[in-house]
């Protein structure tokens, strides 16, 4: 793939004046940057060192511009969103990951566990009629039997057969294999039979043995997470991949993470979307850390887009990055802003100031504020409904509408 033409509103500026030199770069760094830009233009793959250079260069607009070219070549002016809800069945968790403020131990007054009846009632009474997806992730609750996890999917499907169930991270899949005393493949068979649609990409954090040892030693390590993801994708199940940034990790570890996800994708091809997750320190064991700032948010999005040349989508997860950054990130490599979410618990336990959920109109407005065309999608990007007719898109028209 080469970046020949991008039929977008920003495409009018493709042939723009050459801006010689750069106020923030040495001649040598500028040459390196230009060499990387030429590689991306030619559709060549970037290596680890190049990714690290992009991650560290102060020329964030050049990196953003390059990531935006890739983004527009793949998706034009479209920006995707989904009508979804989060469902966290339990916050009891056997693990004690130091970046987590959601997990609770027995005896904690804030601990909760939803019965299947409660879930059924919630779905029947509160789920919006046009809801497309449920994102199901919870604590590793030792009191819940194997059958609960399977029946949970059945219960939801019984009430609302059309809902797509994006359920259970690799952490939960591996846990099910342990408590069900079955291989992962057999667990997946049970889940698929009960209505599983796809798997979320959480629980991977950073693919680094050092970070794993320091922050979440009880949970699946890098190799096991990748192995479980391989099994899931070999079973034909699509999934996402996330990356938790802005805590104790190094730049090298983030870029290495991207390379390892890219390597697995070469082999399996099952990753739909890459989702950088901005760490929120409040109420966690790492509350002394400052957390990521806006520049790191944009850098991470842009470098992810440039490194993960075999993954279709890069998401700006507004719950964690914030609505403002999500809007800006649509020009720095992101093409998807997740969805309505409705009732987010995990990041808000860690002090997130974003709303718990937003409505469809707000998502559309956010996308239009960025002068993009909102496209309502389903989980697998199979059913795509543009909110503005594609082709009628003219930048200033979009801009006037946004005002």
């Amino acid at each position, binding site marked *: 793939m080469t970046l020949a033409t991008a039929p977008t*509103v*920003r495409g*009018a*500026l*493709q*042939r*723009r*004046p*050459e*801006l010689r030199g*750069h*106020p*923030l770069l040495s001649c040598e760094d500028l040459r390196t940057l*230009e060499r990387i*830009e*030429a590689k*991306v*233009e030619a559709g060549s793959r970037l290596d680890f060192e190049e990714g690290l250079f992009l991650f560290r260069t*102060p020329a*964030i*607009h*050049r990196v*953003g*511009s*390059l990531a*935006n070219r890739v983004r527009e070549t793949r998706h034009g002016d479209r920006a995707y969103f989904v009508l979804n809800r989060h469902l966290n069945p339990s916050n009891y968790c056997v693990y004690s990951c130091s970046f987590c403020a959601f997990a609770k131990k027995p005896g904690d007054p804030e601990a909760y566990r939803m019965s299947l009846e409660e879930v059924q009632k919630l779905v029947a009474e509160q789920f919006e009629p046009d809801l497309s997806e449920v994102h199901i992730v919870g604590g590793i609750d030792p009191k819940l039997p194997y059958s609960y996890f399977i029946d949970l999917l059945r219960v939801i499907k019984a009430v609302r057969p059309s809902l797509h169930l994006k359920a259970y991270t690799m952490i939960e899949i591996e846990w099910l294999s342990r408590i069900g005393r079955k291989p992962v493949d057999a667990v997946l068979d049970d889940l698929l039979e009960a209505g599983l649609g796809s798997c979320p990409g959480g629980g991977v954090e950073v693919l680094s043995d050092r970070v794993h040892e320091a922050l979440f030693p009880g949970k699946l390590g890098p190799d096991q997470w990748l192995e479980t993801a391989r099994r899931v994708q070999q079973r034909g199940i699509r999934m996402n991949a996330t990356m938790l940034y802005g805590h104790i990790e190094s730049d090298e570890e983030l870029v290495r993470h991207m390379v390892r996800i890219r390597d697995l994708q070469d082999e399996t091809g099952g990753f739909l979307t890459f989702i950088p997750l901005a760490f929120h320190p409040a109420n966690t064991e790492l509350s002394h850390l*400052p957390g990521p*700032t*806006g*520049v*790191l*948010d*944009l850098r991470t999005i842009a470098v992810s887009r440039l490194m993960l040349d075999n993954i279709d989508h890069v998401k700006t997860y507004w719950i964690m*990055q*914030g*609505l*403002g*950054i999500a*809007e*800006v990130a649509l*020009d*720095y490599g992101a093409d998807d802003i997740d969805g309505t979410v409705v009732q987010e618990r995990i990041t808000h336990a860690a002090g997130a*100031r974003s709303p718990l959920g937003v409505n469809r109109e707000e998502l559309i*407005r*956010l996308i239009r*504020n*960025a*002068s993009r065309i909102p496209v309502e999608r389903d989980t697998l990007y199979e059913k795509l409904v543009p909110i503005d007719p594609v082709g009628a898109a003219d*930048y*200033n028209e979009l*801009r006037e509408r*946004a*005002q």
Partner: protein
Amino acid sequence: MNPAAASPSVCAPSRSGRALSEAIEKAWAGERLQRRDAEALIRCPDLNLLGELATAARFRMNPLPRVTYIVDRNINPTNVCVARCRFCAFDRLPGDPEGYVLSKEEIFTKVDELLQVGGIQVLLQGGHHPELGIEYYEDLFRSLRERYPSLHIHGLSPSEIVHVSRLSRLSIPVVIERLEAAGLNSIPGGGGEILVDSVRQRIAPGKAMSGPWLTVMREAHRRGMRTTATMMYGHVETLDDRVEHLLLLRDLQDQTRGFTAFIAWPFQPGGSELDLPRSGAQEFLRINAVARLVLDNFDHQQTSFVTQGDKLGQLALFFGCDDFGGTMLEENVVSAAGTQCLIPIERIEHCIRSAGFEPRRRNMYYEVLQ
């Protein structure tokens, strides 16, 4: 990479495209932008490019990789106001039980708190109270000056000065002269909104129009008093109105060189009469970039973290801003509209550092403090 590297001339599809390409070339070369250039750039679809141009302009103006801020405090002596601006959620009409006027003791307490955290400046702004004329402010400033000889008093935006001049039947130069004699050091650029009267008639008919606003600034500058300039965008104005606003400020600055800095923030819809959607994050970065390019005679530009939060506030450092503004410690006006993002000093410094700049404290004159 650069698609235009082979041909320095630009093949844009339309006249507006050509105008934009010319404006981009001029902006990159650091030439003065004309109205048509500004009108093209404010419509530029490429956010990355605007950031690139504004960052270059910022480093031409301020070559050091540092970002300043000031430890100051907002004090709003009264929220009683007869201006009735349609965008405001802070004001109360005379007689409203929620109306207040701070006592001197309350104001002193606030200043004491400021000094305890190492602050050096108060920003005194409030409503257009129908009974607080020149004597009230003279007395307040004198008391502050007496009690805190080195405190910098940055106070009374032009519309308040116009209000005081009407109420006390004094000319604008006399009001400024008397306030300065009482202790006023500088004037904040608040109440500028958009300096186009057709816009002001719609959103703030009771407040100074653009002529008197600019007159106050011109008079202050003539006396050697420094001021700031602001812009509140994202309500009923057009993109060209924003350009007009910037050009008016640039023209006055050409004559007086009295403005220290420019600050832009969006209209905050919560709780006000104007039922409009909140303007977006990209808009904030775009207007900052365009302002940095147009206002080539303004030394400094502040990012409005109070309205945008620390993340976008920080990103504006890559869209032309070189200053994080004031710590404020207290904010009542935009928070009345449901927006409040005060940030502790350590967080301000962290945002500056993690963007690759050195944080430095300054005074109103942008002199870096040791």
